């Protein structure tokens, strides 16, 4: 049986009995999702990598007692979300007025041309300017493809709170992104 055919829950069971190769396989499968979530939320690759690493190491520690109640990806996302929120609060506490907390430069993006880079920058800034909860809700919904129920499970918020946050977040984004209507059309 190839590793691709083995489900995430089976890999967690294997990891639970001490086979660490299963951890590498899980990381390969889900690192994109976790890294992009952390990067979009925190805006820095160094922090996103740390969060990604810590997420999988925590999953490993929890493997022995892991009981699949929700989808594995939702459970894994919930670990990453908690770490991201903690990190964000740590950054806010330790921030000094003269420190630059701007997200990583757009130079890292694989964009074609200055126009595209500018567009990405505006979208990124619009999302980063949202409140912590609205930003998290939009990232999970729009980019990680989680349903309202899954966002509710991953964050611990009620489903109605998630829906309310999404409506407000998309309305705020619409207002912020109005200035780049020309790009979108």
């Amino acid at each position: 049986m190839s590793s691709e055919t083995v489900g995430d829950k089976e890999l967690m069971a294997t990891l639970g009995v001490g086979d660490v190769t299963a951890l590498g396989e899980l990381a390969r499968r889900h690192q994109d999702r976790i890294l992009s979530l952390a990067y979009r939320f925190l805006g820095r690759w160094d922090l996103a990598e740390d969060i990604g690493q810590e997420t999988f190491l925590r999953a490993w520690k929890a493997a022995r007692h892991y009981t699949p109640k929700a989808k594995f990806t939702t459970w894994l996302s919930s670990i990453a979300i908690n770490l991201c929120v903690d990190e964000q609060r740590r950054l806010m506490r330790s921030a000094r007025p003269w420190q630059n907390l701007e997200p990583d430069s757009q130079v890292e993006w694989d964009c074609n041309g200055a126009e595209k880079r500018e567009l990405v920058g505006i979208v990124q800034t619009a999302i980063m300017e949202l409140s912590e909860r609205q930003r998290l809700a939009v990232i999970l919904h729009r980019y990680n493809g989680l349903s309202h129920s899954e966002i509710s499970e991953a964050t611990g918020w009620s489903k109605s709170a998630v829906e309310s946050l999404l409506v407000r977040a998309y309305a705020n984004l619409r207002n912020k992104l109005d200035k780049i209507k020309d790009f979108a059309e």
Partner: protein
Amino acid sequence: MEHIKDIELIEYVGGTLAAGRHRQLQKHITVCEGCAERCQQMLATWDTLDNWDVDTAAHSIAGRIETLAAADKLAKRRFRTDYLPRARLLILAFRVAASIIIGIGFGYMLARWIVPQQPPATAASTDAPKYVDALGLEWSNGFVWSVLDEPQPEKDKEQAQ
């Protein structure tokens, strides 16, 4: 039909509604100008957000995680084989030492209980001056005369000798 709720409009644009509901909303949008405009705005926002794609290829962490996990497992194994037996031996030594200390203490207490203590040797004298008690001195033997001004009676001298 009522206007489409904001949250349903988001899901309609995202294409995550059930097929039946999607068709219902589609039909409504064709006849409701207000909802059609809202739908266009939401679609524009949705598509603009699509531009922020993240390339994680340069930030792979799978290899690092495997290395960390393998190192941790090795450290645990080394702890089990190298340090754990020594720690167990140390705990055993402590237990033996504690047993010995408790045994000695218990034996001492038992000996004190079995062998009755001798009362302090005191020689009572009937000729104690009355003010000795008032001074807080014990009338036991001839030593008290050394601190008193009065001469020691001959009877007490003999008794002390």
